[in-house]
């Protein structure tokens, strides 16, 4: 842990969505624990998929961007706000939580 500088890193991504998510009850999956994260998905105005990440593992922006791009390619949701609190989850765990969240979206 000592190699990780103190302070959180905040990252924001926005993708133009294609599939309207419509209205749904906010969904939370995952837990903010070591090597894990929580993903909160909420309906939002507009046709974007806006993603906000706060992570304790600094310096992995490139990877987050690629993970989010691929996620949006799998699920090109529109009108969705994704918020993430991360405690050093690997990309595999991040992708899994995102997919789990999408699978719980119920109009």
């Amino acid at each position, binding site marked *: 842990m000592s190699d*990780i*500088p*103190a*302070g*959180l890193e905040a990252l924001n991504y926005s993708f133009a969505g294609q599939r309207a998510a419509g209205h749904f009850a*906010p969904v*939370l999956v995952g*837990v*903010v*624990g*070591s090597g*894990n994260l*929580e993903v*909160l998905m*909420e309906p939002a105005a507009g046709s974007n998929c806006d993603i906000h990440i*706060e*992570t*304790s593992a600094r310096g992995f922006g490139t990877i987050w961007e690629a993970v989010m791009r691929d996620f949006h390619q799998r699920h090109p949701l529109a009108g969705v706000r994704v*918020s993430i*609190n*991360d*405690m050093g989850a690997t990309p595999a765990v991040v992708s899994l939580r995102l997919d789990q969240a999408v699978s719980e979206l119920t109009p």
Partner: protein
Amino acid sequence: MSALDTAKVSVSYAECSARERIARLVDAESFHEWLPPAERVTSPHLAQLGVPSAFDDGVAIGRATLAGRPVFIAAQEGEFMGGGVGEVHGAKLVGLLRRALRDRPDAVLLLAESGGVRLHEANAGLIAVSEVMRALLDVRAAGIPVVVLIGGANGCFGGMGIVARCADRVVMSDMGRLAMSGPEVIEASHGVDEFDSRDRALVWRTTGGKHRWLSGDCDVLVEDDVTAFRDAAIAALDASMPVTLARLELEHALLASRLRLLPEHVAGDEAVALWARLGVADASRVAELDVDAVRALRTV
């Protein structure tokens, strides 16, 4: 894979997240959350220490029905900061208890999993835990049973270990732990000879559900199974036991006699010695017995 699902009858309480525990414990779809994650009522203190916050600050609270009856429920998430109580986390618990005093549900269920005070906001956490105690005792005095359920991997320690013992009823699984200071803290302070925290069997003999059952520190001992916890919670719905002077005198007598029962120095394992002196048959075999067998051994 349907064959698998039907074969799997038991869901481990320890393995569930706080939210899964609530969902499986109360009547299906009955949980209504207050200050849910989307409201983002989070800790204002963690970010400056480089720690991400959680949208619920590690505790979910709300109302639900249990066997059709209205209850309030809170569940601490042990994976987030070890379930530590911070300013917001504590205030959510206090708010729930105050609201119970006002709205008078049939019971308040507290699914405790906590290392106690969250050190990253230690002063606020300490005060908050004492506020939880006072609010809990107000609810208890009003005749609304407060039931604490303990079965998470992180146990119930520190201030929350005291809170648990302020409740009307304590339900534990044998995987659960209930104590004050964690074994690591004691080992760090007094050395490995005082408490070898890596000797997990010793840790459980000292703090685990079986010991708490045999010594009377919990009221119900269940398997590590969500349904067992649900059944125990239903059975506790009418378990109100307001604090009276007579009851505290009984409590005092029990604790004082237990203190006399265990000499400062005993040969062999202290837990086994205490059980034996409590009259538990086969005290040396407790560790290997299953929950059913241990349940039958209680003498207090």
